[in-house]
């Protein structure tokens, strides 16, 4: 069971800020494919991975990173702080 979080327009497009996901996905990319297959709003949010960033347990990561032991996955657009 992984906590999946969404921020900014990813959150708005999917329509919720976080959810528990039961998955056996090996990598972030596998998880993205599972989510995108669920419903159109997920497919829309994950349509262009180059427009997305991912963090695993609050550290920036690649879409090819493994999910072993990861408790929290977050998807969001490039940051725009400052």
């Amino acid at each position, binding site marked *: 069971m992984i906590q999946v979080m969404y921020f900014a327009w990813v959150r708005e497009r999917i329509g919720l800020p976080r959810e528990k996901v039961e998955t056996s996905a090996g990598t972030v990319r596998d998880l993205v494919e599972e989510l995108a297959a669920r419903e159109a709003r997920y497919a829309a949010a994950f349509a262009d991975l180059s427009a997305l960033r991912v963090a695993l347990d609050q550290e920036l990561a690649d879409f090819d990173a493994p999910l072993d032991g990861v408790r929290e996955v977050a998807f969001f657009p490039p940051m*725009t*702080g400052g």
Partner: protein
Amino acid sequence: MTVRVQEETFDIGAEAGAFAVRAGGQAGAVVTFTGVVRDRPGGGLREMVIEHYPGMTERALSSIEAEAVSRWALTDSLIIHRFGPLAPGDQIMMVATAAPHRADAFAAAEYLMDYLKSRAPFWKKEIAADGAEWVAARDEDEAALHRW
């Protein structure tokens, strides 16, 4: 070395003053950067909402700050970043650095800003009369990281 992530505003005056006093006789140079919500070129910005990722934000800022401290001879540093709804002219964030020499204080402040812009989990949304829009990341901001 201080990181604060907060919804309430801050007094840039009081912060800069306290920072300079704290640096005392050790630092010869204190640099501050303050980011202010800018209206759109033609006006009309009603508010800017800043979303962030509680927990990761503090971690990211602390790690950016630690990296700056390891690269330059700083006697002190400060990062404050707000979240929530802001109005044009409001302060969004500030960084401050203190060092014996000005080159270190300037470089560290620019480094903190460059990394904070592109590596700390904040997102800005502009709310105007004609709609709302997430601010897009600028290529220049990503490119700025390559100079360090």
